């Protein structure tokens, strides 16, 4: 589920950049080679195709996360004190990393990015259908504001991905665990 969702989110972001470039809200455009779809129509086609993948995968993941207790057990954020403590420990290199167990900073980031992806999906629906789902657009303060929140959510997700991928590069064995679908610590070897 993680990898299908990851592919869908990456497709959504890159095709979203192609759409953004058609009418940028901020003072920059994304280089064309970084976008998916080539131009506006291609970007939209990718966006509303990957949307279904994200929607199906994301719904299944949320259902699993809530029902299995995974969310409650593993990523329910702890208090700010624990976050500061673990952040300090991580920065000073004293934070242990056990596969399958998340520290307070990870809990905050993972719960946060799941929430932000949900916000981006819901604002995305509201700007896709601002008349048929007008109540949803109103909830976000109308079409232009919903569109801006959608953009802000993308930026948050990209920032998360930068931190997330940097940490994977620093701790590559987590990637092996994710790829082999195991969360087992390698046995300590006697030395």
């Amino acid at each position, binding site marked *: 589920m993680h*990898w299908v969702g990851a592919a869908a989110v990456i497709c959504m972001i890159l095709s979203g950049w192609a759409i953004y470039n058609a009418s940028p809200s901020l003072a920059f455009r994304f280089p064309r080679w970084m976008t998916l779809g*080539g131009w506006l129509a291609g970007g*939209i086609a990718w966006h509303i195709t990957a949307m279904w993948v994200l929607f199906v995968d994301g719904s299944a993941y949320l259902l699993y996360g809530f029902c299995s207790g995974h969310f409650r057990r593993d990523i329910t954020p702890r208090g700010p004190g624990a976050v500061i403590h673990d952040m300090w420990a991580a920065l000073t290199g004293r934070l242990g990393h056990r596969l399958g167990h998340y520290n307070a900073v990870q809990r905050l980031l993972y719960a946060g990015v799941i929430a932000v992806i949900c916000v981006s999906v819901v604002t995305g629906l509201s700007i896709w259908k601002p*008349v048929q*789902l007008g109540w949803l657009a109103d909830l976000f303060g109308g079409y232009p504001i919903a569109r801006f929140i959608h953009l802000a959510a993308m930026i948050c997700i990209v920032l998360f991905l930068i931190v997330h991928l940097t940490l994977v590069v620093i701790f590559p064995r987590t990637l092996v665990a994710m790829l*082999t679908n195991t969360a087992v610590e390698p046995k300590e070897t006697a030395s």
Partner: protein
Amino acid sequence: MSLPRTERIKPSVTADEIRPELIGIGRRSALMRGLSLGGLAMLTGCDLSTHSGVDAALWAMMRFDDRVQAALFSRKRLAQTYPVSAVTEPFRFNAYYQEWQVREMPPDWRLELSGRITEKAPWTIDKLHALPRETQITRHICIEGWSQIGQWSGVPLHAFLQRVGADFKARYVSFKCFDGYSTSIDMPSALHPQTILALDFLDKPLGPEWGAPVRLRIPTKLGYKSAKNIQAIAVTNAYPGGYWEDQGYDWFSGS
């Protein structure tokens, strides 16, 4: 001081002992790379203009999305309307060409009708002006993402179609314009109360840049569906496509 080669600590696991696992991991990561970075690099070339399988899949997904959009559409659900004070000024010119290329109305202009319509006699602009009108202040949302609020008034399309005896069971209403543009909409959207053949913009008869002498204004669809400078209307069961739709904008484009 480095240890002599023979005195290096012997690894408890040698590469040979875990070779199958290493190969498995290598294959998997190669697969993931293929699916992600390399794959994306190839896929970025898929922009709806090629005959690749990916582009075919994207087109198929757009047809699926069109059906979802048609199912979401309700003729009773109205686009939000705004007070006069909310009208965007200045209103942005938008077309598939630049503003200096705007075409004036041809002197012998008549609105031509064809297809599944009983009274196909062409309409003069005066005859159109004689029909009852409605005014709306609605948000025009471009497929590019920007939006602005404008005021249009004109003849509700459902009233006009009824007047000329259009077949309401037909699937499409298509619009051909004398500036080379064209588009088409589904019949339920054509019969929506806020879909109008606009004659006025901001309380004045349409200027050529705003679509003179008559344009479609359909706030339940994206802006490119509101065709300007209309020359001909047809009611048909054969998919008519349109200028942008043929290049890849999704056809239904409902708001």
